[in-house]
């Protein structure tokens, strides 16, 4: 957290653009979630569970949400490019004492730290909060189930994956120092690192389905007991099943964050040696 904080402090001139980029990213996820939810409300209106709302208004809102998605993504990409080039300029100034090759390699690893690591986390948190509000309106138990699944998929699993990936990288770095360069060894290392990442992503997908079925069963039980009405059941299941995408991306974002932290540690190590 300290290292990320230092990097963000270094990039303070870009703070306003970073906030806008996170907001645009969160809005894109939110609009993406609103499409099935609005369609769910439209279904309720058609079957007579929500007579006070207009079907036309729902349809127009869903269409507007759909069209807003590419517009928001485009705007977000524009800010991402500005943040990246601004970060690169700031890093170049801060690393001017470093050798060219090393500096360029560190800049390559660090310039995407915000949009590839920090921003997805922030946007996923905002998205999860919005989904929890939608689900929590109907029943606290389902909201708690949703919260625990978001924490597992969005925090626990990415952290486990990133620390496992980091230890594999450290092991491979130690073995590279001890042995001569060997193409087969290098490929084996690449395979192991990639397998760790793939296993994490696969585990995220598996858990997403598991949590979905747990929620569906909970909804069935609550509905049969009369605790949850049909509107609550439909909106809860739709919201939950359509809310995983921003969280599943976080496993990859955590990997990138670890890479950023490694690069930042190398830089501070090099700068300490230079000071000595």
């Amino acid at each position: 957290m300290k290292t990320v904080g230092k990097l963000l402090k270094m990039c303070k001139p870009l703070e306003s653009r970073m906030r806008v980029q996170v907001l645009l990213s969160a809005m894109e996820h939110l609009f993406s979630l609103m499409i099935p939810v609005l369609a769910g409300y439209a279904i309720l209106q058609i079957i007579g569970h929500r007579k006070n709302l207009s079907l036309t208004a729902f349809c127009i809102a869903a269409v507007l949400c759909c069209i807003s998605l590419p517009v928001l993504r485009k705007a977000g990409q524009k800010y991402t490019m500005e943040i990246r080039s601004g970060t690169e300029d700031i890093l170049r100034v801060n690393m001017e004492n470093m050798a060219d090759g090393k500096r360029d390699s560190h800049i390559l690893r660090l310039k995407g730290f915000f949009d590839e690591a920090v921003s997805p986390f922030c946007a996923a948190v905002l998205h999860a909060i919005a989904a929890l509000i939608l689900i929590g309106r109907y029943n606290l138990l389902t909201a708690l189930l949703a919260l625990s699944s978001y924490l597992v998929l969005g925090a626990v699993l990415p952290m486990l994956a990133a620390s496992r990936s980091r230890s594999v990288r450290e092991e491979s770095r130690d073995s590279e120092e001890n042995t001569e360069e060997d193409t087969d060894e290098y490929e084996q290392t690449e395979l192991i690192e990639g397998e760790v990442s793939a296993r994490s992503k696969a585990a995220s997908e598996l858990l997403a389905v598991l949590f979905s079925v747990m929620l569906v069963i909970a909804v069935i039980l609550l509905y049969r007991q009369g605790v949850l009405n049909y509107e609550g059941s439909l909106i809860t299941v739709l919201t939950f099943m359509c809310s995983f995408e921003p969280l599943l991306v976080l496993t990859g974002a955590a990997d990138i964050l670890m890479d950023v932290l490694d690069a930042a540690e190398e830089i501070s190590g090099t700068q300490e040696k230079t000071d000595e």
Partner: protein
Amino acid sequence: MFEKRLYSLNGEGKKYIRLNVLVQWGGLLAEIAVIYAAALTLDALYSGLSGGFLAFFAIMTATGTMFVRYFCVRGSFRCGFLSAMKTREVLHSRLSLKADAEKEERQKATENAERMEKYCSEYLPQLYYAPLAAVTVTVAACFVCWKAALLLPAAAGLYLIAVIPNEKLTRKTRDVLICAAYLCVALGIVVCLLELKNHNAHIYGCLMVIMLTGELLRPLRLLEKSRPAAEEGRKACDAFFTFLEKEEGGEKAR
């Protein structure tokens, strides 16, 4: 659309690209099964079917699809890795024949080879998978609401045209095409709702179409994300093959 010279050179790598597409498609079928189970459950809740049956059906479907998706994701990575390795072998074997070339040119050719590896392992599987996913989702949607399903391939087609590297299309045209694709998806959902209102579709059909649109757009967005790898890969291919031909031409002249 794709680099033919590289594709024809990459004998064994093609097998892993095809396998990658097949594995991802298996994952998509599993996801469609989960969506079907969830949609049917919600429809049955409304109709008043037995809760025990619903829970059993949901558990059985989800258990099967969970493991299918797990192995599909891991399989997809493996196939991507193996196709990258096979591409690397082929390109390095070609490079080894040019040992006499200048060091700087060999260095550039090696860097181009790395970009071509990425092109084969990341872009090509997505290029084949995205249209296959669109067709599969359309077929699945046809069974529940064929009128809405007709708009889905239109959306996929517009998105593919916007995303595939093409020098003739400007950025603005691409943006308009992507907006039009999303509009087709939105209209598909609206048509489905109207069919439900006119009693031509069931609740589960409507829910399936709504959730399937996400599965339609996801591979297209991934293809869009791998577009920079595609553009760099194509430029790298041109430079790499020019380097090989130049060296061959030089040798012939000597």
